[in-house]
C-alpha cells in the first residue's frame, strides 16, 4: 500500500472511530440530565435508575472518545505535517477554545460520576448539564476547524506564503455554521436512534420493561425530533455547498455537466469515463431548485473545474445517497412515532413500532459516517480547498502502511471491547440498576 493512501486511510479510520464516541459523549449527557431532572422533580425511582445506568455509558464513551481525541491531536502532525505547519496558526483558535471546553467537560464529569450522595442534588444535576453543554461546544468548535478546510478564511495566500493571519476570521469562516449545525443535529439523531433501538430490543425481550420503556421514550423523543429537523439543516448545507464548493455538490449528485433546470439524480451508477449516470431516477429541475431556490437556476457541474481538481465522484455520490436515504427513513419512523404519541396511543404498545426502532438502531451512525465521508472525500484533492493539496501535506516518513495496520487493529479491538462492555451493562440492568426488580427479589 502506498504511504499516501495509508495515511489517508489511517486518518479516516481514526476520525471515523472518534466521531462515534464523540457524538455519544456529547449527546448522552443530555438524555441523562433529563432523566435526572425527572427524578429530582417526581422522585420516581425508575428515573434515578435510568440516570445511573446511562451515566456508566457516558463514562465509558467519554473515556474512549477522550483518548481517541488525544491521538487525533497528534496524528494531525504525524500524518500531515506540511498541513499543520501552515494551518495550525490559522485554524488553531477553535482548537485552543475546544481545549478549554473539553477540560471543563472532564471536570464536570468527575463531579457528576462521583457526586451521588456527596453534592447538593441540584448542583449535582447542573454538573451533568455542564458535561453536555461543554461537549456540544467542543463538537461545534472542532467542526468549525474542519469547516475552515472547506472554506479557508482569515489569511492571504500570496506566492506560497500565508500572510495577514486572523484566527478569529478563520474560525468564523463561511462554512462553520451550516456544518456545525448539521453535525450537532446528526449527533442527536444517531445517538437517539441507537439508544432507543437498544432499549426497544430489551422491551421486546420483556426484561425490566418499565425501566427500558422510560429510557426508550427519552431517547426516542430526542432522536425523532432531531431526525425531523435534519432535512432543514441539510437544505441550508446544500445551498451553502452549492455556493462555496460547487464541485463538491456536483460530486455528491454525480452531476457532470453545468446546466440549468438540473435534475435531482437519485441512486444510479456513475460512469466517470463517459460522464453520465446509469439507472438513476431523475427528478427534472429539482436540483436547481434545491441548490439555488429557482427551478431554472444554473448548477455548476464537475466540468466547471479542471480534471485534476475534481473530487472522486463514485464514493461521494454513494455516500451522499446513503446519508439522505437513511435520513429519510428515520424521518418516516419519526412521523410514525409522533402519530403514535398523539393520535394512536395503542401503537405505542404494539410490537411492530418497537421492531422498527430496533432495525433503525445503527441507521443514524451509518448516515453520520456517510455524511462525514461526503464532506471529506468531496473536498479532495484538497486538504485546504484551493490552497494545499492533500498529497502535498503527507509526512515524508515511509512505511505509514504499518502504522495504519497497527492503528486499525487497535481501533477494532477497542470497538469489540466497548461493545462487550455495553452488552454487559445492558444485560445486567435488572441486577444493577432496576430497583423495581430488586425489591421484587427481596419480597420473594
Amino acid at each position, binding site marked *: 500500500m502506498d504511504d499516501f493512501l495509508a495515511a489517508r486511510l489511517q486518518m479516516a479510520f481514526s476520525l471515523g472511530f472518534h466521531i462515534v464516541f464523540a457524538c455519544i459523549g456529547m449527546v448522552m449527557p443530555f438524555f441523562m440530565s433529563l432523566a435526572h431532572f425527572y427524578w429530582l422533580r417526581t422522585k420516581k425511582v425508575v428515573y434515578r435508575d435510568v440516570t445511573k445506568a446511562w451515566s456508566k455509558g457516558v463514562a465509558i464513551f467519554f473515556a474512549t472518545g477522550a483518548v*481517541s481525541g488525544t491521538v487525533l491531536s497528534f496524528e494531525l502532525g504525524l500524518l500531515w505535517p506540511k498541513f499543520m505547519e501552515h494551518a495550525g496558526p490559522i485554524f488553531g483558535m477553535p482548537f485552543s477554545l475546544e481545549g478549554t471546553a473539553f477540560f471543563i467537560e472532564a471536570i464536570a464529569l468527575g463531579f457528576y460520576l462521583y457526586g451521588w450522595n456527596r453534592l447538593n442534588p441540584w448542583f449535582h444535576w447542573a454538573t451533568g448539564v455542564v458535561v453536555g453543554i461543554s461537549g456540544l461546544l467542543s463538537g461545534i468548535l472542532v467542526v468549525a476547524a474542519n469547516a475552515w478546510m472547506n472554506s479557508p478564511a482569515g489569511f492571504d495566500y500570496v506566492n506560497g506564503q500565508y500572510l495577514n493571519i486572523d*484566527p478569529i476570521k478563520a474560525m468564523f469562516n463561511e462554512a462553520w455554521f451550516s456544518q456545525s449545525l448539521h453535525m450537532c443535529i446528526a449527533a442527536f439523531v444517531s445517538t437517539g436512534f441507537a439508544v432507543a433501538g437498544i432499549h426497544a430490543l430489551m422491551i421486546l425481550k420483556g426484561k425490566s420493561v418499565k425501566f427500558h420503556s422510560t429510557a426508550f421514550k427519552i431517547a426516542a423523543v430526542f432522536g425523532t425530533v432531531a431526525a425531523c429537523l435534519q432535512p432543514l439543516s441539510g437544505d441550508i448545507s446544500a445551498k451553502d455547498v452549492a455556493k462555496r464548493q460547487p464541485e463538491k455538490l456536483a460530486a455528491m449528485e454525480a452531476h457532470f455537466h453545468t446546466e440549468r433546470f438540473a435534475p435531482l439524480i437519485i441512486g444510479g451508477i456513475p460512469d466517470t469515463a463517459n460522464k453520465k449516470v446509469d439507472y438513476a431516477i431523475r427528478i427534472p429541475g429539482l436540483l436547481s431548485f434545491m441548490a439555488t431556490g429557482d427551478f431554472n437556476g444554473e448548477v455548476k457541474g464537475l466540468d466547471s473545474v479542471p480534471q485534476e481538481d475534481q473530487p472522486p465522484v463514485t464514493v461521494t455520490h454513494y455516500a451522499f445517497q446513503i446519508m439522505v436515504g437513511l435520513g429519510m427513513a428515520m424521518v418516516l419512523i419519526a412521523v410514525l412515532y409522533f402519530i403514535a404519541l398523539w393520535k394512536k396511543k395503542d401503537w405505542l404498545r404494539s410490537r411492530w413500532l418497537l421492531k422498527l426502532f430496533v432495525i433503525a438502531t445503527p441507521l443514524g451512525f451509518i448516515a453520520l459516517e456517510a455524511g462525514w465521508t461526503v464532506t471529506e472525500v468531496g473536498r479532495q484533492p484538497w486538504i485546504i480547498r484551493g490552497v494545499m493539496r492533500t498529497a502535498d501535506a503527507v509526512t515524508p516518513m515511509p512505511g505509514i502502511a504499518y502504522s495504519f495496520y497497527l492503528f486499525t487493529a487497535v481501533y477494532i479491538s477497542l470497538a469489540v471491547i466497548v461493545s462487550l462492555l455495553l452488552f454487559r451493562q445492558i444485560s445486567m440492568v435488572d441486577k444493577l440498576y432496576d430497583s423495581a426488580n430488586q425489591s421484587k427479589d427481596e419480597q420473594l
Partner: protein
Amino acid sequence: MIYVVIIFLWTSILLYILLGGADFGAGIIELFTSKTNKAKTRKTMYKAIGPIWEANHMWLIIAVVILFVGFPKIYTTISVYLHIPLVCMLLGIIARGTAFVFRNYDAVKDDMQKVYTPIFVYSSLITPFFLGIIAASSVSGQIDPQANDFVSAYIFSWLNWFSVAVGIFTVSICGFLAIIFIIGQTDNDGDRQHFVGKAKRAIFIVMFCGALVFAAAYAEHIPLATWIFGDTPGLIAIIAASISLIIMFYALNKDKPILLRLLAGFQVAMILFAATYTHFPDIVLLKNGENLSLVAHQGQVKTIASLGYALLIGSLFILPALVYLIYIFQKPKEIIADH
C-alpha cells in the same frame, strides 16, 4: 503575549508530569507490588484519583494545542522525526485510558479483569517511558533534517542511551509521585508505614536513575553537566531541589502528607526548570546545529495574541472548577440525604 503562551506551555507540561505522572505511577507501583498488597494499593489509589482522573490527562492536550497553534514548526519537526516514539506513546495512552475505565465500569467482574489489568499496568509503564524518550530526543541533537536514509532520520533521531536513560528516569519519577500521593490517602497507620517505607526506597531509585541519565549523557557526548550546572539559575534550582529532599525525609518521618506532596511537586518543577532553562528559548536542538526556538519560531502576531487570550480566558474557567473538584473529593465524605 508570547511569554504568557510560553508560561502556559511550560505549566501544562509540568502539570501533566505531576498529575498525569502520578496516575501513571499508580499503574507502575501496581506492577511492582507484591500480590498481597496489590488490592490495597489499588483501592487506596482509586478512591482519591477517580474523580480527577480524566482531568489529569487534559494537560497533555493543552500542551499539544499550544505547540501546534503557536509553534507549528516545532510541532511538525517533532511529529516527523519522532514519529515512532510518539506512536508508541499514543498506543500507551489509548491502552491505559481505556483499560482504566473498562476495569472500573465492566458490569461483570470476571476473567476479563485479567485482560484489563496487565494492559493497564504495562501501558502505565510504557507511556511515561516514551514521553521521557521524546523529551530527551528534543535536546539530544540527534534529529537530522538532512538525513537521507530511514534509520538515521527516523530511528537514531531518538534511539540512544541518553534518551533511554531519561525514559527510565521519567518512569521512576512517576512511581515516586504516586507513592507520595498515596501516603496522604491511607486511612490507617499500618498502611501509612508501608508506603512511607516504599517512598524512601523510591527516592533512592529516582536518584539512581538520575545518575544513570548523567552517565548516559557522558557516554553520548552530551554536555548535560555543563547545561545543568553551568549557569546560576539551573544550579540554584538543583540546590533547592536537594535541600527540599532533606526536608522530605523529615516530612516522611513526621507524617505530613500535604507538605510531602508540595515538596515532591517542587522537586519535579525544579528538575524541569533546570532541564529547560539552560536552552531557553530553544526547545529542539537539531543535529545541524540549527535550533528551534520558542521565540524565533513563534506564529504570527495575531495567532499568538488570540492563543494567549484563549488560554487566559480558559484558565479562568478551568482552574477554579478544578480546585473545587479536588477540594470536594478530598473532604471527608458527608452523605447528603434524599438523593
